[in-house]
Each structure stands twice: as structure tokens, then as C-alpha cells.
């Protein structure tokens, strides 16, 4: 079944640690996105990619980086986690007809 997978689902980590949030999709979509979502707030675009070796920053500067070496894989890396990074991170890929397909998210807590 075509889908989009995010790991880990939950992560608690100390300040200053480097972390990578994984995102993979099996639908062959070229376009992929990372959004940040806080409770009761709108989703904010962090990064997006239109294909292999193509990445752009979104509206929200989150001090994170992404890479797109393979079509199906779009990991997000925080070089030095801070408490302000505590949030839910959602990965998505898109098809023009059906909008985005989202993963289940990673809930990150930085202590």
C-alpha cells in the first residue's frame, strides 16, 4: 500500500543534541514537504523539495536542514536542538489531484 512513513513517532532529547527526523514515501511523488505544527496553530512550512537534489526553505526558519538524495527519502536534521524546537513535525508528499498525503508526524520534546 502506498503511504508515507515518519520515524520516530515520539522523541525526547536534551538541549544541544543533533537529531534527524526520518520521512519516506512509497508513492513516487516528486514533491515533498516538512511542516511544523503547534497545538491549535496552523501548519508552518519549514522546507520543501520538488525532486532529487532540489531543496528550498519555507516561511519558518527553524534552524534545520534537509536533503533529498533519493525520491522516496526526505530527512530533516536539527544540528543543535533547543527547547524552542519542541513541536510536532509533519512530513508530506503531494499529488496535484489529491493535495498532500501526510505522515503521522514526529512529536519532538527538547528538554
Amino acid at each position, binding site marked *: 500500500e502506498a503511504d508515507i512513513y*515518519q520515524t520516530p513517532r515520539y522523541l525526547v532529547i536534551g538541549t544541544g543534541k543533533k537529531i534527524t527526523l526520518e520521512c519516506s514515501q512509497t508513492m513516487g511523488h516528486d*514533491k515533498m*514537504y516538512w*511542516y511544523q505544527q503547534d497545538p*491549535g*496553530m*496552523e*501548519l508552518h*512550512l519549514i522546507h*520543501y523539495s*520538488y525532486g532529487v537534489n532540489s531543496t528550498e526553505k*519555507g516561511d519558518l526558519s527553524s534552524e534545520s536542514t534537509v536533503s533529498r538524495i533519493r525520491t522516496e527519502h526526505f530527512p530533516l536534521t536539527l544540528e543543535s536542538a533547543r527547547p524552542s524546537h519542541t513541536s510536532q513535525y*509533519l512530513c*508530506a508528499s*503531494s499529488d496535484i*489531484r*489529491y*493535495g*498532500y*498525503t*501526510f*505522515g*503521522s*508526524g514526529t*512529536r519532538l520534546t527538547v528538554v
Partner: protein
Amino acid sequence: EDQVTQSPEALRLQEGESSSLNCSYTVSGLRGLFWYRQDPGKGPEFLFTLYSAGEEKEKERLKATLTKKESFLHITAPKPEDSATYLCAVQASGKNDMRFGAGTRLTVKP
């Protein structure tokens, strides 16, 4: 700048009590308006895409409509399992990303 405003922020209904959720938007050329359902602890799930004013889409107890300035998500005879946050998003012409609203948190009591 593209903007999406959803109202109300929260809505509590009795089972069977029909109502509507509003999504007001401003966008420089609408490519598509999307409705999603999000359950706690999960990613948003696609419901509908609307492309032009006057268009309507239906799925079970949900019906989405679109005008040039807003979209409505009508819920007919809701059930407790319809409880969720409903998100609206717009995609502008020439862009591939979307602008999301903050959502309406719907609670349906039995």
C-alpha cells in the same frame, strides 16, 4: 500575502445536530482549496479539493462548497466519530506549497 482564516475555533454539537464550518481566504489566484481532517496525534487526512467558485463535493455526512472568498464544510447529522480538527488550506497559482488555517476543533457529543 495568502491568508486563510477558519471559524469557529471550536464547535460542540449534539449527535444529529447539523452545522457548518467556515474557511475565509485571500490568495493571488486560486489553484485549489483543500479540506483535511486531523485526529489527535495524527497527520491530516485528505477530504476534498475544490478548484472553482460554485463547485461542491460530498463524502458521507460532509459537503464542501466554494465561493470566491470562502469555503464551507457542511456536516449533516454528525456522529461522535466525526469529532476531529478540520483544516482548510489554499494553494495559489504558480505555487506548489499550501497555506493552512488554524483549524476548527469539532466535538460531537452522543
